[in-house]
């Protein structure tokens, strides 16, 4: 085997075989199908958001009817949560976890495949609401009872929405199972738990929370179903309150499901482009686990204004979340200080994630104080808060990972110029869109309204202009990806000088990932260890034959340790 074989090599030109892709149990196929499908949904449900913003450019209801507006925010929110960010969070795990732990595949590949088909079905079922006479669901993404019972929402849209959420919850559960089981069963020899990259840890805690959260969502959907059949049951207070508790028992953990994997992306990107090992690996892992455990006890902060919740308890538990969050930020900053930063597109997204998510986090601590929540609950302040966490945070973290792993997954390099244009436009657009929403909410703008008092007009016009910039920036992404796939330069095995195992195999990796074995695993940065030991050896022994300029990953020189490789 020669080094050139591993570096730049064009992916074999094969005709796409749909049947093969649809039935493949290779984790890379399942992962990419998941991510690709979620990105298509992202475009659809993002389009809904842009339509809403266009409508909100004027205080009076203008472009679309109130009814359509209500359908759009319901499907935008539901779509983004159930069908976009959650599947992206878990799909990244399906694609990357086996590669990062040196495994040939998933432990439960058919489970992951089933999860994918549940996701696909969920999207179709949810969107098919638009074909029914009453239109799609229009009760909001958490669809409180008794509004969503058949008494108050007789259309078929809500029925389809419930079916879709059932499927999405099942999908999330199955993805979680398959990720956890893979980590338990498939780690390469010597890949101990504390040698797993931070991204893998982020997926482990995500999947653990999935195991706890998705069943609660399924339970909530059982109540929804009951409301479709027997709405009279929901004239009492208790079942309505039960629904809220059950829903948020899912609904809060899921915000961390939609967050941790992107912390993982940012951590990997920072250390690779900072050219050093992550600082504070153990505190970060600990804080992830702590975060997951604590976040199961905070759901009541969504219910401060119900008058039927232990506000002071939930306020205290929610505020306590700032401790693990602070430890994570410590890791980010401590790694950046003393790094040697290469400002490639992935790093730019990761860097923007840090202050932007912080805005979402700090406003979240405010919302954890009941007294402040009595004003902010249900207002645009909350809309600003969760878009700063989900969009300015998670989506930016995802793009950091996307630009980072795209060459690995496709075997093609993206254009840096287009990538950076995308980054700057998206950063400007995001902050111009969501920043003023804090002020609008403070001043009394309620969420989920198609029209609003005219004193809020200026703020809303600014927000709508910002959303147009977001839309524009996405065109650069589409062109960049299209161009790279059609005639981008081929990606070498290790284009970024990476630290982790996925860069030790070809781009894209072959079936079973590591046909030529693995470098020895001695830390959470095994490839970096290997490259450093090669460099050290090169410095001492005078090599007889010239060493390739790119550090040879495998092959020439030492052989992989006997037990490595599966």
């Amino acid at each position: 085997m020669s080094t050139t074989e591993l570096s730049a090599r064009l992916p074999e030109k094969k005709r796409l075989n749909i049947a093969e892709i649809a039935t493949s149990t290779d984790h890379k196929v399942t992962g990419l199908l998941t991510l690709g499908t979620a990105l298509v949904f992202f475009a659809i449900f993002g389009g809904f958001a842009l339509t809403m913003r266009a409508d909100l450019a004027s205080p009076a209801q203008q472009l679309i009817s109130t009814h359509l507006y209500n359908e759009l925010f319901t499907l935008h929110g539901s779509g983004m949560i159930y069908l976009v960010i959650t599947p992206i969070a878990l799909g990244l795990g399906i694609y990357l976890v086996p590669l990062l732990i040196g495994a040939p595949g998933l432990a439960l590949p058919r489970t992951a495949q089933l999860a994918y088909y549940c996701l696909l079905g969920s999207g179709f079922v949810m969107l098919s609401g638009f074909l029914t006479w009453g239109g799609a669901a229009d009760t909001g993404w958490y669809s409180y009872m008794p509004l969503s019972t058949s008494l108050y929402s007789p259309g078929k849209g809500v029925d389809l929405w419930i079916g879709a959420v059932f499927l999405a919850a099942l999908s999330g559960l199955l993805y979680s199972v398959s990720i956890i089981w893979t980590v338990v069963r498939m780690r390469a020899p010597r890949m101990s738990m504390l040698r797993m990259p931070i991204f893998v840890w982020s997926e482990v805690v995500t999947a653990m929370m999935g195991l706890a959260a998705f069943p609660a969502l399924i339970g909530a959907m059982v109540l929804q179903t009951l409301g479709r059949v027997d709405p009279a049951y929901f004239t009492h207070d208790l079942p309505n309150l039960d629904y809220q508790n059950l829903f948020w028992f899912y609904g809060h953990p899921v915000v961390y499901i939609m967050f941790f994997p992107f912390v993982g992306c940012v951590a990997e990107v920072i250390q690779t482009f900072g050219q050093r090992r992550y600082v504070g690996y153990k505190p970060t892992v600990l804080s992830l686990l702590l975060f997951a455990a604590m976040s199961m006890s905070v759901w009541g902060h969504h219910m401060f204004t119900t008058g039927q919740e232990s506000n002071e308890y939930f306020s205290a538990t929610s505020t306590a979340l700032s401790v693990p969050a602070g430890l994570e930020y410590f890791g980010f900053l401590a790694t950046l200080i003393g790094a040697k930063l290469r400002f490639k597109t992935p790093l730019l997204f990761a860097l923007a994630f840090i202050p932007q998510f912080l805005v979402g986090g700090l406003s979240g601590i405010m919302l954890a104080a009941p007294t402040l929540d009595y004003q902010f609950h249900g207002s645009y302040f909350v809309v600003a808060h969760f878009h700063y966490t989900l969009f300015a945070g998670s989506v930016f973290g995802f793009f950091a990972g996307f630009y980072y792993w795209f060459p690995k997954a496709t075997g093609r390099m993206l254009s840096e110029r287009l990538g950076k244009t995308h980054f700057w436009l998206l950063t400007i657009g995001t902050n111009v869109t969501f920043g003023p929403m804090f002020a609008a909410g403070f001043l009394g703008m309620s969420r989920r309204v198609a029209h609003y008092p005219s004193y809020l007009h200026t703020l809303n016009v600014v927000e709508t202009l910002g959303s147009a910039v977001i839309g524009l920036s996405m065109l650069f992404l589409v062109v960049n990806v299209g161009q790279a796939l059609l005639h981008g330069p081929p990606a070498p095995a290790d284009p970024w000088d990476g630290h982790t195992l996925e860069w030790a195999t070809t781009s894209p990796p072959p079936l079973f990932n590591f046909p030529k074995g693995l470098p020895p695993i001695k830390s959470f940065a095994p490839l970096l260890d290997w490259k450093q030991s090669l460099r050290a050896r090169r410095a001492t022994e005078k090599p007889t034959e010239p060493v390739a300029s790119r550090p040879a990953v495998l092959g020439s020189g030492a052989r992989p340790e006997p037990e490595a490789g599966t």
Partner: protein
Amino acid sequence: MNTRSQFDHLFTLYAPIAAFVFLVVLATLLFALVRYRAGRGHEPSQKTQHKVLEPLAALVFIGAACFLAVNAANANAAERNQLGPAQLHVRITGFQWCWAFYYPASHVTVRGNCTTDTPTLVVPTGKVIGFSLTSADVVHEWWLPYARWKEEAFPGHFNYFKLRFDHPGHWSGLCDEFCGLYHDRMDFYVRAVSPARFDAWLAARAAKGPGA
């Protein structure tokens, strides 16, 4: 205004802390970006942990969280318990899609339809008003942004809270829990007037008989 002053008190505590934390992180970040960019040709650090700084930071975070949690709990307790017994009772009922305000002592109901007629809740200044809040159908939420206060209205359940308006005024409020097609029309007004004017208003309404 009892709720508004608690909000202002807590917000003036939280906002500067949040701004401070944000600026510290941003400044550290910008410092790192300039100082440690690859163009400077330095070698990256080999350090992988800060044995002293890490636990120290954890302690600072724990301290800050305790401080905030205690302040939040105190403000909430004060907001809920600080006023004495109610001197006037009003029942607020949300329904699809408007509000009704009922003064049980004088059997006066003010009910609007929120299309041609936005209902006004009239209250006396300086008195502690006890509200009971419920819904006739789905969950609504009574929000008066001026008061920095809102609470959800559930069918089959009463929520109780007390407000005291210190100054005369006229403010608009709205429904803040999505409740169906015309949710965004569910506006109302609150007008605070002197107790004398309030009594006169209430007597005039009562004289018109129920249902007026």
